[in-house]
Structure formats: C-alpha cells, structure tokens
C-alpha cells in the first residue's frame, strides 16, 4: 500500500545517512524539493546517483551531504560548470568526493539492468575512450553466439529513488508526461521509490502510452506543488532558464553559495517557505 506522506516525513522515514539515493529526471521533473529536504534534515554520507547532477546535486555536494557520486554529465546545461561539484573534485571542498563516472548510454543500461534485477547492463559502448582505464567497474563480456566483445556496467540499484511527477491518484499510481529521461528505469531499480507530485487526484486520466508507475512500485507519494522548480513540470510551469543562468554566480563563490543554502534551504521549514523566501529576495 503506497503511503501518502508529507515530504519531510517521507524523507525522515525512508532515507538514512549513508544511503545510495538517485534523484532522477532528465532536465524535466528534477525533484528539487526532495533534495532540499535532504539538506534541511542534514543527511550525510550519501551515495548520489544521477545521469546529470544538475543544480540539485551541486547544492547537495556543496552542502556536504555526499560521499560518492555516480554520474555521466556534470555541467550546468547551456551555462557551464557546476562549481560546487568542481570544487569538491578539484579542492576537496567541503569534503572529498568519490567519483564513479560513466557515459549516458552506460548509465541508461545500468538503470535498465537494475529495474530488471539483472546483474549488469550491456552496451555497444566505451569505444575509443580512456574512461574504462579509470573506472574499474567498466568491463566487458563475450557474446556467446558471435564472440563479439560487449561493454558492461554493474546494475544500479539505489536504496531509494526519488522522482517528481505531475500527478498521482490516492492509491499511489503515478503519471508522468513529457520528457521522461530514465525515470521509469531509475524508479523500478530502487528498493524504495518516493515520488513528489504537483497534485493528487481522485482518478488519473487514461494513461495510454504515457508513463505510469503503478502503485505497487511506489513506496510513498508526497504532494509538493512547484517541487521541480527551477527545473519544470510540463503542463504546470516552464523551466526557469533565468535561474539556471543566475546559479552560475551564486555557486561560483563558497561564501555566497553557503549563504544562499543557509537562507533559502536550511532557513526555511518546507518547500512552500523556500519558494516564498526566493520571491522575497527577488
């Protein structure tokens, strides 16, 4: 039975210090509110998994919540660097971070394998690259039929995957429209799946080919309007590209970053108060 919980309670109940956590959503539906709640509750030693760390992991890493990062592209899309990720890798600030680096195709294969509870993902990949020399988890198998070498990566099975979606019904079925990235695979790969949603409705519209995570795959649902901001929720609000541009200057400087996190994340009681504090600052 899917629980319907306030976000703070869902995080407190299901995410422990040291857990392997994947907050997925490829540019669209990034669960920012849930990431902020991890910072607010002071989670430590997390193993963070995400194809594109984006601003949300820049914030978690800069806040000192992460011990390890599994990823495949760590930039601010269309803008430049993730300065907090860079500072942790280049200068070990605020702490050293272990890097488990892949390509997008490999991360997708690792999530697919995880969702199917297979031990590894396969791809025609890692050709002409130095990555396998630096990441010992990248290996290969021989095709038993043709003898061809195929690259492999271990399945990703997070302790908890957290997603944001447009809506769920009261039984916990979760419906997602628009760009879905690898959210379905990341959701099904996890031991527990938490989902924040824009709205909880009595009945979902017929799903047809849209992505639905059925209630028996969902551990808890939390209503959290605006929970993907500054990324977006298609049909509800657009991506705040201006904030992504402005994040560059905030994150570039340690003191300015910390003041931003202290004021807007640690200094607010929940996501509604976080959004209100930004409206005041604007």
């Amino acid at each position, binding site marked *: 039975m899917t629980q319907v919980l306030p976000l703070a309670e869902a995080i407190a109940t299901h995410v422990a210090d040291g857990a392997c956590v994947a907050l997925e959503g490829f540019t669209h539906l990034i669960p920012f509110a849930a990431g902020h709640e991890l910072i607010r509750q002071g989670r430590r030693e997390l193993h963070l998994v995400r194809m594109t760390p984006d601003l949300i992991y820049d914030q978690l890493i800069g806040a000192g919540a992460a011990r390890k990062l599994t990823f495949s592209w760590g930039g601010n899309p269309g803008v430049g660097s993730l300065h907090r990720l860079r500072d942790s890798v280049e200068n070990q600030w605020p702490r050293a971070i272990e890097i488990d680096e892949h390509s*997008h195709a490999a991360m997708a294969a690792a999530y697919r394998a995880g969702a199917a509870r297979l031990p590894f993902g396969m791809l025609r990949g890692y050709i002409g690259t130095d990555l396998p020399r630096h990441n010992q988890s990248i290996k290969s198998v021989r095709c038993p039929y043709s003898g061809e070498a195929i690259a492999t990566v271990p399945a990703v099975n997070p302790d908890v995957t957290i997603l944001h979606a447009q809506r769920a019904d009261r039984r916990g079925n979760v419906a997602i429209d628009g760009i879905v990235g*690898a959210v379905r*695979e990341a959701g099904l790969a996890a031991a527990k799946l938490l989902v924040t949603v824009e709205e909880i409705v009595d009945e979902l519209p017929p799903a047809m080919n849209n992505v639905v995570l059925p209630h028996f795959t969902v551990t808890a649902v939390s209503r959290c309007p605006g929970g993907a901001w500054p990324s977006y929720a298609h049909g509800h609000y657009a991506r705040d590209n201006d904030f992504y541009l402005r994040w560059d200057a905030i994150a570039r400087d340690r003191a300015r970053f910390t003041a931003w996190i202290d004021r807007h994340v640690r200094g607010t009681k929940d996501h509604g108060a976080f959004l209100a504090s930004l409206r005041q600052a604007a």
Partner: protein
Amino acid sequence: MSEYSRDEMMTVAAARLLKDGQVCFVGIGLPSAACNLARLTHAPELVLIYESGTIGTRPTVLPLSIGDGELAETATCVIPLPDIFSDYLQAGRIDVGFLGAAQIDRFGNLNSTVIGPYDKPRTRLPGAGGATEIAAHAKQVFIVMKATPRSFVEKLDFQTSGGHFAGRARSGARGQGPAVIVTDVGILEPLPGSGEFALSVSYPGIPAEEARAGVGWPLASLPVIKTLAAPTASELRALRALESRTAAAHREPVRLPL
C-alpha cells in the same frame, strides 16, 4: 554583403553541411544553432534528435538545456532516454552526430572530461554525456569548435570520445568517425589514409595562416583549399532572428502556479 561575425560564419558553415532529410543527433550550443538554422533554411525535413528523447523536434527558440519543454512540445514523438541510446544511436539510425569539446587532437579525438590528471584534475569538465557513443556510432560526426592552440592540442589530457584513433576499424564502432571540424577560421577534413585533420576550406577574408595559428599541431592542407561563400542575407536573417527569439525566451520570468 552585410557584416557578419566569425561565430556567424562558423554556424552558417556547419549548417550548410547538413543535407535535407538527414537524421541528426544534436547537442546544446553551436550544434543546436547550426541544426536549427539548416532546418529553417535549406533543409526543412532535417530530423533533429536530442538525447532527452525528443525525435523530429522543431523548436521555435533554441533550448538552453537538452530537455527544455519546447523540444517536447514540437516533437514528432518523445521516447525514454534509454531507447534513444540503445535503439537509435547504438542501432545505427543516426546519420550525423554533432560534437564539441574542450580539447581536440589531430585525429579528431576529443576531451570533455578533465584538464590535468584524471585523479587530480586542474579543471574538472562536465564529462562524456552522450559524446562517447555518438562518436562511435553516428554514421558521420561533425565537430564544431573555435580554433585556439589551447583547445587544438598535440596531446589530449584525457580521451573522452574517439576520432580516427588507431584500431577504430576493428573497435566495434559502427560509424565512420569525424568527417569535418568546423572552426571559426576554416574547415578541417581528414587526410586520406592517416585520418589526420588538415585545412580544406577557408572563409572569406581569413588567410590560411590564421587557421594554422589557431591549431596547436603543424596543420597540413589538402591539395586544393576551397573558399566558402560568405553567409547570405537570408541565412543571417534567419540566424539572428533565431538567436534574438532565444535570448528573450531564456530571460522570461517563470511564474509558479501556487
């Protein structure tokens, strides 16, 4: 002929390389500008695929991220990201993949991972993303990069994606590798046999010496160097309109429905 910048020349040069009807795997930035310019000018049936899962997208403004809503709303279909990489890219359905990077060597190998040693980098760059498998499996790769000796180097600090590296033919890569490097001072193409990139096309008013000065290896030339025509008025009009629509859209305030 109207005035134009070197960036505009580079974008127009890249756009002209695309043939109508081709299926292109598009990255953010210059590649996205070039592909959409081509679509808005000579190649209306160009099929643009962004790795976020949008196929056949026809955005009216350039996306800031690879997954802006505009891309989904104007697409023929939106599919899960793992399908893009396995069923489209690895399956060999992409005609042209566009790539850029922080560093490139004479064989078109690319670095977008680190400057300095991997374990103790001076500069940590974003990393591979889709690039490694695009470089391997797109039938052709077009590289778009500004030429400076800092980025066109003798030796990469790290090889993220493969160009014409030794053993490519037996590596399992499905594609032919990089066909061109479009820079702001000319176009480079591989010499037959070695795969080393050499100057093949000049731009109006930019001498070959300037292209050589932008490249950190002794740049050879193809036997005949053609000169590309300057951007036409209609190309410039389409590109500038696209860029001004884009700049306005990216600064538009977002109101949350709360």
